[in-house]
């Protein structure tokens, strides 16, 4: 009773016949072996599973893979430069110590990039805190995350 689905993940077209119950995050992690996208709460609260669908941030634990026929999916593995150099937002998280255990980081980075794309490179602390509403850091390391996003946003100019 499988359902066919074709997705473009990080630029690569993938076609598979899957159980329609498979969540997008399971497809990414288990079928594609891209384990940078994390499953935190599995109930759409924490945002660790955030990926881009046609450029928009969504929670991949709360959608079925078969809903995304023909869509372009970008995961945390897909944002680095051609030679593997870190995306400016990833570099900023490293420099500002914007992580403690690191579990929420892939989702935070994806949401942060989405935020910059919508609101530009100069972000206030309030805009960042509001923009990251859908992401939870259970180490509660928000202070440095906000700093990292501010720096990453500035360094994304021209990217």
């Amino acid at each position, binding site marked *: *009773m499988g359902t066919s689905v074709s997705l473009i993940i990080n630029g690569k077209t993938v076609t598979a016949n899957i159980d*329609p119950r498979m*969540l997008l995050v399971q497809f990414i992690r288990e079928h594609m072996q891209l384990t940078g996208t994390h499953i935190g709460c599995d109930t*759409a*609260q924490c945002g660790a599973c955030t990926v881009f669908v046609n450029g*928009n941030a969504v*929670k991949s634990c709360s959608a079925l893979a*078969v*809903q995304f026929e023909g869509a372009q999916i970008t995961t945390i593995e897909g944002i680095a430069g051609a030679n593997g150099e870190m995306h400016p937002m990833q570099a900023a998280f490293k420099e500002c110590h914007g992580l403690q255990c690191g579990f929420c980081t892939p989702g935070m980075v994806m*949401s942060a990039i989405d935020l910059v794309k919508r609101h530009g490179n100069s972000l206030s602390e309030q805009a960042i805190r509001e923009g990251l509403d859908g992401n939870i850091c259970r180490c509660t390391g928000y202070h440095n995350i906000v700093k990292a996003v501010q720096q990453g946003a500035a360094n994304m100019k021209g990217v």
Partner: protein
Amino acid sequence: MYAFEFHRPKSVSEAAALLAKSKGKLIAGGQSLVGAMKLRLASPENLVDLGGVAELRGIKREGNAIVIGAGTRHAEVAASKDVQSSIPALAALAGGIGDRQVRNMGTIGGSLANNDPAADYPAAVLGLGATIRTNKRTIAADDFFKGMYETALAPDELITAVSFPAPKKAAYIKFRNPASRFALVGVFVSQDASGVRVAVTGAGSAGVFRATALEQALAKNFSPDAVKGIKVDTAKLNTDLHATAEYRAHLITVLAGRAVAKASS
């Protein structure tokens, strides 16, 4: 999650035919349904996906009204220049649903058909006296909401668009539950030539409702002072682990006053 068969119609008529034949459920953004299926609160044997039905997407002006396709996502409504200029309260409401990621998936049609008792869109639809268009008919907002998770939609009927008349003034104030981001209480107030409407979400034990006592007071005097001291009847309000009916009643009056102030500013 229980097993189901997945269908991908390309048009409204194909979706309606599949729905009638399979006795299944529609999935739009799936931001409520997928979670409910994971918890086995919903277990459809057939799922009809509206994601590929292009005719359901988009926002247009029709005279004094803004017409939003059922498959339009919350983020698109929030960012729409047409909605922002004609009904800024509606754009703001859409921009305050859930979080960014949820707004990128969830749709207005999905939210209304689900009729979650704490959802935001039902307050806008009832508070603006909008009209729901389906594949069979049009339904006035006052006739659409039939109680918790219940609507006037027939089993084989689907929402195609919602038409919102632009009011003279309107505002929505939501008191968010900080964990779920749903409305503990949300109040939508609007004023136009036909009168004042006050719609309340999050509080009623039968879902969204119009607060008639507040409407009458505001019809005489559209100012925050007009609602001060009005006690909302607690008999039909929810008491749960988040708040008592008395607390919700208090919030309704307070938020209505704030919404009137915001609408008038």
